[in-house]
């Protein structure tokens, strides 16, 4: 009963405010187990820093419940590298980490797609695939893709900052 209520609430929220959902889980976490009050007492607002949306809070309980048992683990986004102070080795390591993260994100998204496809293939009139599940899994793929692009853009900016030292433009 509690699970049905949670899924229903998630569906309503997903359909009503997809933008909020994007903000809510901009940093994907490994599958979160349901807890009594995951984000209690904290405002549900994004932290914006130089155009970047960051929310490090765990997913709300209903998100965790809604796709439980998909066994797809979101990779951890690599730590940012400050190109202005980093050594070349740190930059190269950051590039490698970003590349690994992109590959892991692709695998994670494939995992979710396979999970949903498997569910759909087993579904019938008596046991349809829950719309909430599809919505939320799609949402997780979108977030993962967004984060993958964000990680690449962040690394590109770090490389450019690192390279700026030798750009030879005026006013330096």
């Amino acid at each position, binding site marked *: 009963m509690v699970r049905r209520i949670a899924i229903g609430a998630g569906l309503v929220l997903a359909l009503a405010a997809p933008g909020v959902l994007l903000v809510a889980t901009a940093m994907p976490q490994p599958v979160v187990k349901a807890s009594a009050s995951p984000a209690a007492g904290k405002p549900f607002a994004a932290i914006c820093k130089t155009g970047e949306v960051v929310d490090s809070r765990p997913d709300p309980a209903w998100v965790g419940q809604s796709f439980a048992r998909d066994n797809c683990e979101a990779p951890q986004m690599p730590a940012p590298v400050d190109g202005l102070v980093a050594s070349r080795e740190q*930059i190269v390591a950051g590039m490698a980490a970003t590349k690994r993260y992109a590959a892991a994100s692709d695998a994670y998204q494939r995992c979710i797609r396979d999970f949903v496809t498997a569910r759909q293939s087993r579904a019938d009139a008596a046991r349809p695939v829950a719309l909430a599940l599809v919505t939320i899994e799609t949402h997780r793929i979108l977030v993962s893709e967004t984060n993958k692009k964000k990680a690449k853009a962040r690394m590109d900016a770090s*490389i*450019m900052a690192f390279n700026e030292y030798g750009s030879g*433009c005026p006013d330096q």
Partner: protein
Amino acid sequence: MRPVTALPTGGMVMTRFSRKFLLAAGAAVLAAGLGAGPSTFQGAYAQGDGDIMVPKFEVAPFWPKPLPNNWRLAMVIGLSMDAKDNVWIVHRPQTLEQKESYATRGEADCCTAAPDVLEFDPAGNLLRHWGRDEVRGNGHDWPSSNHGITVDKDENVWLGGNGAYQPGPAPGSAAQFAAAPGAATQQQMISREGGGEIGIYHDSFILKFTADGKYLGQIGKANASKGSLDTDNVRGVAQIRVIPQTNELVLADGYGNKRVSIWDAATMKFKRMWGAYGKKPNDDPIPHYDVNSPQFGNPVHCAQPSNDGLIYVCDRTNNRIQIFKIDGTYVKQITMEEKTKGDGALWEIAFSRDPAQKFMYVSDGANEKIHVLDRATLKELYWFGGGGRLPGQFYAVHSIVTDTKGNIYTTETYRGQRVQKFVYKGMVPLSSLIKQHVIGGSVINAGGPVTTQ
């Protein structure tokens, strides 16, 4: 006394003969070298005792003559030699400091920025000068940051630019220095765009003028570049040179793009391009200081054609020179001063003027040297210069050209802000040059023996 029988008699005779012969030959070469110019570069090798003959240079401390009108040079970032051995430079008037440009604002006698483009004769007399005011006044583009000049065989003048940002107030004006403290930093950030991000880039063009500064046309348009695969625009061109065999412009393209691009000098139409190793250019960001980088870094700072149909490309921040055929076929690369960070080591290249272009001179604005190489073997023979303010020393030595007499000219950017002439003094044994240690203000190979690649 050493027994005569210790060496074969014939060998002793031959040895004596060889020394006398070599001394005489060496003296003849030296004597000829003092007066005959670059023809003496040919056959100057293979002297006695493993020593080699190399060109010697000495700075001309009073070249050029003082500029009129309280004019000052700012960052000098382009240099070209015309068919009459006249020296053309382009500098960045807006990079004079506030205290260097009092006269512009009527606050003191000294000084004001010279016009952007200046022509000197071999004696250092100023012949012609013109710049942005006339061109912009007629509604044409002008770079927000000048970079590179070339005078072609028809005496057309080509100018490049490497400004990502939009043109600012008039150089030296009160408005230029009235900006809030944070504004300069912001402009710095914009101007430092290192490539890879396809944002607006002002200097997406090169300009063509008559020798008197009349606008003739341009390749590309301001703010129009779409990146390294753009065939209509360029992006931060560092150097323009002409391939005489094909009458094509070869561009070090440059500060925004990561490519060499070739354009028809007559029609100004795009012809071809290539990236590192002759591959398709790629704008993905990649860190500098990698001699094995699969891409050019920014800036691609020189593209110097040789008489034998090669193009030498300075991948400045990767401390390497890549050599191509004029169709873009990759030939080989050399690396020098590999540990150099900052701006990188290899800025521009000039060749000796003998038909074989036996010697190659590389300006190194980070280590403040002119490297002298044997072009055939690409071995470094020696270097001269060193960092400092004296004549013959360098601060950010940038551009380099040679004239028909074998002389070298250099320019300096950042706070170097000058053009220098190094007079060819003939061919001398390398060992004697090293022993001299200092010629004019230039140090010769301080700190050890000649290093070779």
